[in-house]
């Protein structure tokens, strides 16, 4: 049972990385469908479409950052620390902001990106505004990343 804490902590990290990745995959997929539609009419918009399609991809990376920080915290690149199940739960909790907010926000951002791609198909000059609209959604993914980082660094006391 002494590994229970570690298991709970890794479960949290896996959810952060996995769910954020799922969200990004869905979001990029939604935006990609829209981009493909626009590009079938006008292939020259490829770069603009690609930029907008890539926006919901960052959430996956935020999840990955948390995975890395948890592994670092547990010294998994050397000899892993042995932690109590309560400490494991703390790390699990610290992973949740990213797991939830990145998952959902990537999907919403994908929808906003898809709409923005439709917008530049009509008004190619508005690409600046089109980039900002999906970026508004990302604010909350960034905040969740920050929350998770702060919780991990200062909320969880090991040893």
């Amino acid at each position: 049972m002494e590994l229970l804490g570690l298991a709970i902590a890794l479960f949290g990290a896996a959810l952060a990385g996995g769910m954020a990745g799922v969200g990004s995959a869905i979001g990029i997929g939604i935006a990609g469908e829209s981009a493909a539609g626009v590009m079938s009419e006008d292939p020259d918009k490829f770069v603009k479409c690609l930029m907008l399609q890539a926006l919901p991809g960052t959430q996956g990376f935020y999840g990955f950052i948390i995975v890395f920080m948890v592994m670092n915290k547990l010294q998994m690149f050397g000899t892993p620390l042995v932690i109590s199940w309560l400490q494991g739960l703390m790390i699990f909790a610290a992973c949740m902001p990213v797991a939830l907010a990145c998952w959902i926000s990537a999907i919403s951002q994908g929808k906003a990106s898809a709409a923005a791609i439709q917008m530049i198909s009509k008004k190619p000059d508005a690409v600046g505004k089109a980039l900002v609209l999906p970026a508004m959604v990302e604010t909350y993914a960034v905040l969740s990343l920050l929350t998770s980082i702060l919780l991990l660094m200062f909320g969880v006391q090991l040893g």
Partner: protein
Amino acid sequence: MGVAELKKVELYYHKSVEENVARIVQRSGVCQIIESAEGPEARLAETENRLAACEEQEAYLRYLFRTLGSHYTDPVSSIDRLLGERQVFSLDELAQIAQETDLKELVSSVKTTEAKLNELRIEISQHKVNAGILSKIKGFPYPLSVLGEGTRTLKGVLGTLSAAQSEALKQDLTHSAYSKETELFVAPRKTKDKDAWVVVLYLRSREQEILELCVKNGMTLVDLPAHISDTVARESAKISDRLAECEGEESEILQDLACTADEWMPVVQSMSDYWKVLHDRYHALAASVATDSTVRTCFWVPAAAVPALQKQVEAAGSAVAFVVSDPKEEDRPPTLLMNNAFNRPAEVLTNLYSPPAYGQRDPTSPMAPFFFLFFGMCLGDAGYAIVIASVLWLLFKKYRKIPDGTKNFMRLFYVGAAATFLYGAVTGSFFGDFIDAFPFGAFLRPVKDALLIVDPLKNPVAILGISLLLGVVHLMFGLGVAAYDECRRGNYADAAGGKISWILFVMGLLFVGGGSSAMLPRFFYAPGAVMAVVGTGLIFWYAGRGEKNIFLKVGLGLYALYGSTAYLGDILSYSRLLALGLGSAVIGSVINLLGQMIVGVPFVGWLLAFFVVAGGHVFSLAINLLGAFVHAMRLQYVEFFSKFYTGDGVNFNPLKFQTQYVDIFDEI
């Protein structure tokens, strides 16, 4: 600097010099046509012929782009073209080419070739269908003419039906009264084929009954063209010969088209630009007003460019009058941004948002330093900065004629890379932790450590504090600019109540908070408290100043004060500076870690590690670059601009040589 001063120029000229004047105006590239009050098409009737001539040529060109374009590989890549690698022509040269080129002739010859190609393709597909049918009835022993004309007494019918149905048909035929007068041929069938191909031969006198029987059993009748009358084997051979012939002809025609494309596409491209330039010119002329012999055209011209323009126009002859005036109250001139070399690249960002209305503040210069700083913090890696700067440097070195718009955009990233380098150096990030991760980085370690001020991985709270502080500075600066603008317009109440009040309120609260929690020296507390109280007072006064009822006044004031939550949100929004910078650093470190793990593979470890690390960093650079650009931009658009800037202008769009494929210059 900021928004360039524009003058209204009125040109009166005799119709005899019209072409010449229009050419001078277009060549100068500094005149935006003002549509006459009668609208853009006031003189359409007069200019219609010239426009129609342009449009006719443009229609030919569109056709040629569509047909020849698909057979043409452009030797100049679109990147090269974007970066200014274009052939240069003088307008006279192009006019000469236009005179010598009969586009109509070219179009009709291409059309003929295309028609021939289409006919050939139809024939090929028919042959393929027939060959397909013949391959199904390979063993049929009689000449195929029996299916078409038949003989005097005999006729046959070809068709398909399912295996089961063909069995049923066979049964029906053998059990019918006229079984002796028919013959059924079932073509040998491969097991994966679902349908059987059959031929029923019969005496002509039985045609009616046989056809009914076939239809009853679900047979789909297939007609072969009458000219296929010999045996299956011979006809198949004939068809495959003809098919080979046709395909040979097809590839000849395609080659022919490719040759035509190689020969003509460069001309088509330059002509497309030439006719577009003329089209623009005549379209602009259509917006003037004219009497029987005189034309009046109005332009917006940057004040600095007026004297040179006047000289050029007046050189065109004595039949021209040049009148300069200032924009009037009711005019809505377009906006041309003019900034110094440092701020000019950031004009791109202002224009991406929306340019300021004429006479309003240009937000470029207050925004530019913050944009570069935030961009640097979001990307935050000295190694990536060096990569970006090197790529741009190479591009600038290779391409000498980069168009201004693209050049500014590239310079934007140049300056951004400088900021990124500085931030990366003081936070010790060089391709993530590359210097510490690999032994051959060791010689750089002392340099890195000497420059290091704060490591965001070890002390994120310090960077968070700096990020939020920068946010406060940015927002307060925006409010300050707004207050200054209001004062300049004489709206002192708006400045004090709507802007300065909030500066006092927010800064006051921060001083009180900082002073009481020992983050700031204690003596900030008292002035902070005074500022917050004065700020609150101003907010209440400003919100309730239109109301007499005291309760309403207080209510409105409280409601305005509730707006402070927006400021809290705005300031917290700057925490993204920490998060994105940290993101680059961590992703970079993970890539290096993967490299370290893979180095241990025997023999090829270093090579694998090289590819993993190099590829990983290219990917990380791409995604972080996009993030840094978008988020640095967003902080300007959403948090900063909302404090003082509306941006309801339209861009200055002068009549000029706007081309896609070649560069045009003009000497008169």
